[in-house]
């Protein structure tokens, strides 16, 4: 079903939005990802991912307050929804579960 599958980059963006709760907008998400992953990402990629996530209902957005930093203009703030939270938790759980089932002898 559409909306249940999360791409790798979408997952990263979703996590970044979660990290920057209350201050997650385009530029800050770019900054967060660059900081965390140590590689540069394009704004376009991030915005597209945010759009998709919003369409899938994993994040919602709202026009935020005015800040001096942006020359008195407003920004769109993204918040992870309950569904979004469930989605990343599920991924985490899945990963853990897989990690736990790796036998020790796998590392030779």
């Amino acid at each position, binding site marked *: 079903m559409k909306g249940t599958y999360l791409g790798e980059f979408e997952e990263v963006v979703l996590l970044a939005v979660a990290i920057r709760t209350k201050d997650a907008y385009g530029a800050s998400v770019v900054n967060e990802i660059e900081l965390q992953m140590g590689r540069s990402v*394009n704004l376009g990629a991030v*915005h597209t991912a945010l759009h998709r996530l919003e369409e899938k209902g994993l994040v919602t957005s709202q026009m935020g307050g005015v800040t001096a930093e*942006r*020359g008195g203009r407003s920004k769109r703030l993204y918040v992870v929804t309950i569904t979004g939270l469930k989605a990343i938790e599920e991924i985490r759980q899945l990963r853990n579960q897989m990690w736990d089932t790796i036998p020790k002898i796998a590392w030779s």
Partner: protein
Amino acid sequence: MNSSQPNRENPPRMATKLFHWFCAAHLLNEMEDDLDELFQQRVRTVGIHRARWRYVQDVVSLLRPSLMRPSPIKSKENQYSNPSHTDTLHNYFKIAWRILVKNGTFSTVNIMGLSVGMTTAILIGLWIFDEMSYDKYHQNYERIARVMQHQTYNGSTSTTPATPLPMRAALQNEYASEFSHIALSSWTEDHILTYGTNKFTKKGNCVEPDFPFMMSLKMIKGVATGLNNPNSMLLSESVSKALFGSDDPINKILKVDNKNYFKVTGVYEDLPYATEFRDVSFLLPWKFFVEEEAWVKRSETNWGNNSFLLLVQIAPNTSFEKVTAKIEGIKARHAKEEARFNPKAFLHPMSRWHLYSEWGNGRPVRGRIQFVWLFGIIGGFVLLLACINFMNLSTAQSQKRAKEVGICKAIGSIRSQLIAQFFIESLLLAMISFTLSIILIQGLLPWFNQIADKKINFPWHNERSWALGVGFTMLTGLLAGSYPALYLSGFRPIKVLKGTCQAGRFAALPRQVLVVVQFTVSITLVVGTLIVLRQIQHAKNRPVGFDRSGLLSIAMNTPDLHRPDLALRQDLMQTGADLNIAKSSSPTSEVWSSDASFSWPGKDPNQTGDFGTVGITYEYGKTVGWQFKEGRDFSRNFSTDAMGIVINESAAKFMGLKKTVGTHIKWNGEQYTIIGLIQDVVTGSPFMPIQPTIFLLKEDWAYFFHIRLNPALTVQQALLKLEPVFKKHNPGSPFEYKFASEEYDQKFHAEERIGKLSTVFASLAIFISCLGLFGLASFFAEQRQKEIGIRKVLGASIVNLWQMLSKDFVVLVVISCVLAIPIAYYLMHDWLQQYTYRTIVSWWIFAAAMSGALLITLVTVSFQAIKAAVLNPVKSLRNE
């Protein structure tokens, strides 16, 4: 980092502009903020150059459709709509559609008229394209020609594609470097192909080995070189399928005309319908033709026998004109005795075969190309009529829409927006019509192909034709929409809304002129059609000179039938299916051979005695039903009849004899006596004068059996009785026969095709014009609804009102009639000149066309007029 830079850096200007241009309006702000923030941040951390570079990268990465589209998730925060470029267009279309639906009648009339007009124009366009691309299947199309000759007899020059055999050798010996291929060919004739129990009569040619290469035949199986061998042949794919089914035909042995055997060495792809040689379904070797036919062998040195088709492909470095100049005098140089006919050889290029193949007195005359012009012009006119409807109806309506324009302008529309709005309306109409006409064409093509004798397919996969069609539709839409778009949009809103903007006295004039044009064209077409049909009828009523009913002919196509026929005759008579049997050298309504060496008492020595010659048997006259003017038929009771001849009226007139019967005629050193004079039998074209013809008793020339069926039996019964007899005496051939009446009817095919097509076009023209009138009439009736209501209240009768509403249109149609008559008379008089046997253009044809046009106009207009006149005035006056 450079410390001299100012505090706040600017991102690259071009990138920002690009971004502004493509980004969806509702996303523009936040995106730009993000871009800006990141840029400033990066100026501080990684330096201005990297920051600018990254900025450009970001802008490019934002170039995504999902960010360009207006947002589907409408957020409440957007207080104002931010329309994108397409929204305006969308709105124009919406309004245009609403207006079309609101004015249902006009839209229907418009679309119907325009799509019928377009269908006609496209069909004619396809037809013309097909005519122009005739023979282009052959790859060497540009360099192939046939050798033709002009020759002058009795002061008139005739032109023929038939050449003498020695010409080929002369071309080869003297001008070999001018040609890359030379190939002789026989005419396309019926032959019987037999394989096992499969027997078919098919058309084919005997050709020299170069022919398949010259014509770039596509070999499907085997090789094209087989024609070097006198016992090999090539088959077309369809004939191969018919004879062998799915078996491999290569190296199979076929029997031809029940006497000669050939090995199949190759199969070629069927030639398409639009080629000169489309009927050629198999190829036999030329060598066989020379060996088999003694007269061909004899002709190899005879410059006087013009009987062969000579095809050439000229060398790459020369042109048809250059070669023609060189070979022109070839025959006169080689054959001194032929020089008195002033023979001139010339090359007739393949590109001109189909459309430019007629000569009159040595000069090219109109030929088939005239039909291309004729139908091209008619197609253009029919389309013009449809466009006129379109314009008339939109201008008529435009008065109604003046208020709309006023209001639009008052609330802030600028002129260019109104122009766009009107243009989109007319384009929409044109596009709908185009789509409809494509559908119509799909339905009509098979029928059209049948009438026009074509195999045209709609070029679905040809981008150029689509581009042409769509471009043409746009042009129509733009032209038709130009008046309201440019004129109406210039109205001053205050004037219009106050109602002071009155149309001037002559506002209706352009419309009236257009209606007159429409009807002039339609009436001209109707008169033309009537005259064409009348001419055909006239020729059909011509006295034929023989009795066609129940007369059939059978070709003597195998040696079995050429043997003495006593047994066959006896068997046929025993069946009781036939009354008479005779043989002749030509079909009943053709003369296949002629001879110029007759002489008679009182003949001018400079005149050539050129007569058609037909060899017949004793019973021929009785079988076909000759009508004698003087003298008598051949009879077995007179032994002298072997040297007797029967002539037709034209021959008697040509010789200018005072007394025909008993006159002696000299021919080939022998003296013949005229024993009978018959009424002319129509031979050749029924529209042309009849060839002077001489009938002789020559049984050995015979090529046809003629059988007069017994009228006491039905044709079916008679045929059933005849078939076994022919099967018995001619076992190698399928039983095939032709009715004289059918053969005769075929002479009218070309003219009947014109008759049918012009009937169709004339009816379309009238239909489209009436559709326009219908639309206009209903519009004016609606426009004057209140006036009619008031008149009725004041006591006008329905007849009065009907007269009032119809008068305007009737006057226009009468003017058109007056204009159309001289035009039609001039054109049709000219057309009839090409026929010697022609009808006269009589006044009643014009009268009929005029009254017909008036009647149709009245019916069309009255429908609306009466509808308006009987309306209850209370209803029309109540509102307001």
